[in-house]
Structure formats: structure tokens, C-alpha cells
């Protein structure tokens, strides 16, 4: 039985809604409107003069081969970060879920990286990976790998993907571990009695039971890799070498904050906003499906 409270009239419900609505307007609708407006204007940084530019900023964006290349690059980057972060998290969670000594300590240690701010993580990685003075670079040289991510596109991409995924593994780990622990032991025991072991048990029992969690995590990871990895990339490569690691977010920062080209930067923000809206819709879709079960 569900209990429902019915308010008489509209004043009380309206009053109760006001704080939430005010926050939404102040923190979301208003800035969004400003960004959309700025995206159709050509303005100097100080806001002393402004002229209407129509869709100029967007046309410039989508006819710019460098921007189109950045879109493709961002997709590759997001896919790689999501795949790596999720894959590692599942692997670690499956092992940490097993009955091993000191698993509490393992679990705590695996969560730590999440507490490190992206920019700080970026700086730490920049020092470790530094081609001439970094510890990791020295190790790789011993293995015969000529490590210089400052000049090698592929190595630069590997560096930023690795550093970005490293942090997200912790976040994913918590969710996957919780997901694993919510799978009824009886099902696993039944599978064990039927002779399913190791990989087979994982593929036929655990993975399907984890699917809703993973679907949710995929969306969260995509959003993370697209929008929250800026600090890491900026600290490590600033988008280089050349433009090898310049994702859309790095470009927004370059054009908006460094270059003070507000129109172009606002147009890019609007494009990104459309992307987030799409991803959020996808996320709600998954959540609804999960709730409907």
C-alpha cells in the first residue's frame, strides 16, 4: 500500500517547489541562456561592444577541419577511457569480491585514487612520465621502449587515456563491487553446483546480473571522459603534441579562457551541451529500464 499526501489548493506545493525551481533557473537555465546568446554574438572580451553574428560562429566551427578532427579524437579518447576504466574495475572488483585475506584493505586502497583531484593527478603523472626525468620513462627505457610522449602521438594518447582512466577505475570499482555483492549468493552457488566455474560463471551469471550497473556506468564514464578529464590533459600534454590529444573540452578552454574568443567558445559549449543532453537522455533511458524490472 502506498500512502499519498494530497495538498489542498496550489499555494503549498508551489511554495515547496520554489527553492528547487530557483536553483534550476539560477544555476542552469540562466547560464545556458547566456551561453546560447553569446554563441550568436561577436564580442570583445570586456563586453564593451557586441555585434550579432547569426550562425557565423557555428558555421566557422563545422567548416573548420581542426574542429571536426577534434570531434573524432574525442570519440576515440572517450571510448578508450571508458573501456579501460570499466574493464579494469570489473576485473579488480571480481577479485576483491572473492574471499581473500585483507580484502578490506584492498578495497580501501582501490578507492583512493578517486580522492585525488584531476589536475593533481595530471601533475603526478606528468612527473612520472616525463621523457627525460620521469621514473616510468626510465623503466620503459630499460625495457627498450623509446618513451617520449611529448613528441609521439600514440604515446601521448596512451598517457592521457591511462591517467584519466586510472582515477575513474576507483569510482567504477565501488559500483561494480556493490553490484556483485547484490547478486544473491544462491544463484552463484546454484551455478557452482551445476559445474560452472571461473570465466564461464562470470560470463553467464555475473555479467548479465551486472548489466544494468554497467550500462549506467558506461554513460557516467563517457560523460566523465568527455568533460572532467580536462585538468589531466592540460597538466600532461596541453592537447599536444601537435593536436594529438586536443579533445573538445581542451579546445573550449583554449578558445574561451586563453584566447578569449567568447563567440567561438560559446558555440562550442552549446554543441557540448547538446551532447550532454543526449547522453543524459540515454542515462534516463537505462535507469527507467532498470527501474521497470
Amino acid at each position, binding site marked *: 500500500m502506498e500512502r499519498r499526501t494530497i495538498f489542498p489548493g496550489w499555494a503549498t506545493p508551489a511554495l515547496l517547489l520554489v527553492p528547487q525551481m530557483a536553483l534550476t533557473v539560477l544555476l542552469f537555465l540562466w547560464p545556458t541562456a547566456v551561453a546560447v546568446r553569446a554563441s550568436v554574438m*561577436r*564580442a*570583445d*572580451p*570586456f*563586453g*564593451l*561592444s557586441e555585434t550579432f553574428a547569426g550562425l557565423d560562429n557555428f558555421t566557422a566551427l563545422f567548416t573548420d577541419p581542426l574542429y571536426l578532427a577534434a570531434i573524432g579524437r574525442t570519440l576515440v579518447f572517450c571510448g578508450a577511457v571508458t573501456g579501460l576504466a570499466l574493464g579494469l574495475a570489473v576485473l579488480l572488483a571480481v577479485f576483491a569480491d572473492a574471499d581473500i585475506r585483507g580484502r578490506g584493505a584492498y578495497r580501501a586502497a582501490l578507492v583512493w585514487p578517486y580522492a585525488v583531484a584531476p589536475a593533481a593527478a595530471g601533475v603526478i603523472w606528468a612527473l612520472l612520465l*616525463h621523457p*627525460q*626525468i620521469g621514473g616510468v620513462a626510465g623503466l620503459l627505457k630499460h625495457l627498450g621502449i623509446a618513451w617520449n610522449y*611529448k*613528441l*609521439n*602521438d600514440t604515446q601521448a594518447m596512451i598517457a592521457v587515456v591511462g591517467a584519466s582512466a586510472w582515477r575513474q577505475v576507483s569510482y567504477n570499482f565501488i559500483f561494480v563491487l556493490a553490484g556483485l555483492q547484490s547478486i544473491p549468493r544462491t544463484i552463484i552457488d546454484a551455478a557452482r553446483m551445476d559445474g560452472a566455474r571461473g570465466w564461464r560463471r562470470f560470463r553467464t551469471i555475473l555479467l548479465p546480473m551486472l548489466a544494468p550497473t554497467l550500462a549506467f556506468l558506461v554513460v557516467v564514464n563517457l560523460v566523465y571522459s568527455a568533460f572532467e578529464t580536462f585538468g589531466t590533459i592540460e597538466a600532461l600534454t*596541453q*592537447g*599536444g*603534441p*601537435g*593536436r594529438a590529444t586536443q579533445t573538445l573540452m581542451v579546445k573550449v578552454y*583554449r*578558445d574561451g*579562457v*586563453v*584566447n*578569449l*574568443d567568447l*563567440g*567561438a567558445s560559446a558555440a562550442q559549449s552549446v554543441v557540448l551541451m547538446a551532447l550532454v543532453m543526449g547522453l543524459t537522455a540515454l542515462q534516463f533511458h537505462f535507469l527507467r529500464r532498470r527501474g521497470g524490472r
Partner: protein
Amino acid sequence: MNRRELLAGTAASAGLALVPGLALAQGAPVQITFWHAMAGPLGDELKRLCDAFNAVQKAVVVEPVFKGTYPETMTAAIAAFRAGKAPHLVQMYEVGTGSMLAAGAAVKQVWQLAEETGVRLDPAIYMPAVRSYYSLPDGRMASMPFNSSTPIMWCNKDLFERAGLDPERPPETWEQVMTAAEALRSKGGAKVGMTTAWPTWVHLECFGAIHDVPFATRANGFEGLDAELVFNSPPMRSHITRLLEMAKAGTFTYAGRGAAGDSLYPAGETGISFNSSGIRAAVVRDARFRPMAAQLPYDPAVRATPNNSIIGGASLWTMTAPDRSAAEYKAVASFLAFLARPDTDASWHQRTGYVPVTLGGAGLSLAQGYYARNPGADIPIRQLNRGEVTVNSKGLRLGRLTEIRAIVEEEFETALQGKQNAGAALDTAVARGNKVLREFEKSVSR
């Protein structure tokens, strides 16, 4: 009452006469907010300057606020101006100068401030290479020189010796640099022969200044917003080709954009490094070898005698806000006048490694025996006063120069990867950079 009189007396004897217009101030002190981008020890030094000013007089209190990196400070100041809450004073890096000059009523230029407040802020007391960077073409000063540096060549004496090179005679020409880098690698056992920070500033902007080769038309942008980049000329091309060849031969190691190349030299990994003179403090603190500062090398094939290099660093801009009073502007002016005093400037220079911006500060440091005690500390000053200041060595006055530098570094990296030659890299950088300049021109013309 007694206390105030006492303080006034102290202030006067401590040199308030040099801080004009304050002796009559009454009541509560005027608060001045000063946004800056000096992190770590430099931030402490800046705070020391403000504290010193607050101590010698009681009419004004300057409050320094750290706002992050240079670009972050600039963005914060612009956002604050748009909200009507700009700081009184903001430290702006040299490449932001073009944007600030186009800021119209958002700023009060130094000459305007001096005129309105009656506080004397004399351009003539500044070093020519510093003054010209922040002045209008007619010589009126737009912003206040503050922390200036210039790129110089840093050599590792220990590695020089091991390579059989004379540690007391740094290379003077690019030819000699190449030979030295080669020896450092093959005989000296140096991990890195030569490296550089600030690739664009050192190898195009300063290379152009030293050799009297333009970076952009219209006197490097000083004479108009319609300036066009021209750094793809033959001398620049041959210099970049030289760097690419050295990279291929393993005598030049690319260390990244902007300041990224600052970590190799103090670590003792490189024989020769091009960095800002401002890393002196870090070198003195960290180097486990004998460091040596030298002037930037030149190419006699381009120009027989080298000119002055151009400065980097930052200057101070006075910003406006709707509710700002004349007393506040006067307070700002008096603080700026305090900073220009020889003793203030000399102490800032000696404690930070930035060059003295005033002739008085340099003279005082010399008289105090600072250069005798710290050999090499005068190298940047001598280099800034080398030859004659020409239209190509005054500095750059280009909007969105930060972006242009990033573009150059992107294209340079692509060339280092072997995907294009020096000519193609510079041509592409010029074309992309000119697009940025035209966008800037459109955005500020009204």
C-alpha cells in the same frame, strides 16, 4: 591622536616624500585590491612589497590576491570587470598587452592615471627595452612595468668541462652552439645536448628581435590592428630547419610547450638550455652543478651584430569600475610610484631573478655589489641593452598572442615528428595565426 601623529612622522621619515599625494590623507585608509599570478616564493616576495608599502604610509592598504596562472588571472579580471567589480590593479602577462590595449574604458592607462591624479609616473626612468613593450607608439606608457624577464642561454659548466669545452667561454653563435651540443652528447655524456623552454618566445620572437627580422608587419603590430604575421621569412625558416636537424641528430631535445622546458636544466640533464632569466632563483636553489648564464646566441649570416632580445613577464594594469572614486585611483598611482623607487625595484630584482625594470634599480644593484657577488645575474640586463632598439626588437603588440604561440608550438611539434618541414610548419602557423588576428580585429573594432 598621538599614535597617528607618530605614524605620520615615521612614514614621512621613511620616505613618504617619494610617495606624493598621501601626506594629507585622513580617516580610514583606502583599500586597494591587487590581483596577481605569482605563485609560491614569488607570491611571498610580492606580498613583501605590498607589506612594505603598507608600512611606510597609512593612507592606503594594498591587498594582494593570488588568482592563479596568468591566463586565469586575465580571465578573472575580465569577468570581474563585466560584473562591475574589477580589481584596482591586475598583473597581466606581456602577451595579454594587445588585448588590454583594446580594452578601452575598462582600463586607465598609466599616462591617463598620472594626468588625472597628478602623481608623477615618469616613463624615462624605465629601461628602454622594458618601457617600449608597454608603451603606445608615441611613447606614452600604457601599463606599469613590473616583473620582466628575458630568455637567456643557461650552460652546465660541469658537462662543458667533461665534453672538453671551455666552461668559461659559452658559445656565441648558433654555429658554436651546434658544435658544443654535439660535443656535449658525444664526449660529455650529457643525456641532452641542448633543450629549450618557450619555443615561440625564444626561437621566433627573440630570434627575430636579435636579428632585426620582423615577426609581424606594422612594426610587429605596434602600429595597427591590421598587422599580419610574417615569421615564415627565410632567416626564421633556416633557424627552425637548424633546430629540426639538431633534433634529428640527437643534439636538441624538445621538452614541450611554454614553461615545460624549465625542469631539465636545474636537474642537470642538459648541457645547454634556453630559459627565462627568471629561473635563476630555482637554479641557485636546485642545481647540483656549476651553472652559467650567457647571452642568447646569434647567426652572423643573418646579422653581423645582435640586437636586444625582447622581454616577457608581466605588467600592472589599472582597471576601472563604475563606483570607483578619484581617491582610489590616486591610491593606485601612489602604489605604482612606490614600486618604481630604485630600492623597491632593486630588492624585487635581486630576490626574484626578474630584471630590474628601472635604470635606478639596476644602478642601485650595481652600487650594492650585487653583480660582483652573483656572476651572471647581469646577463639578462646586458642582453636587453645590447645593440639598438629597432621596430623589430621593441616587442610584440598582437591580440591573442597566447593562441598564436600555441599554434606555432603545435606546428613545430608536427615538424619535429617529421610530418612536415620547417617551411610548411611556419607557413601553416602564419596562415592559422593570421585567421586568429583577423577574428581579434573584428571583435574589437567598434
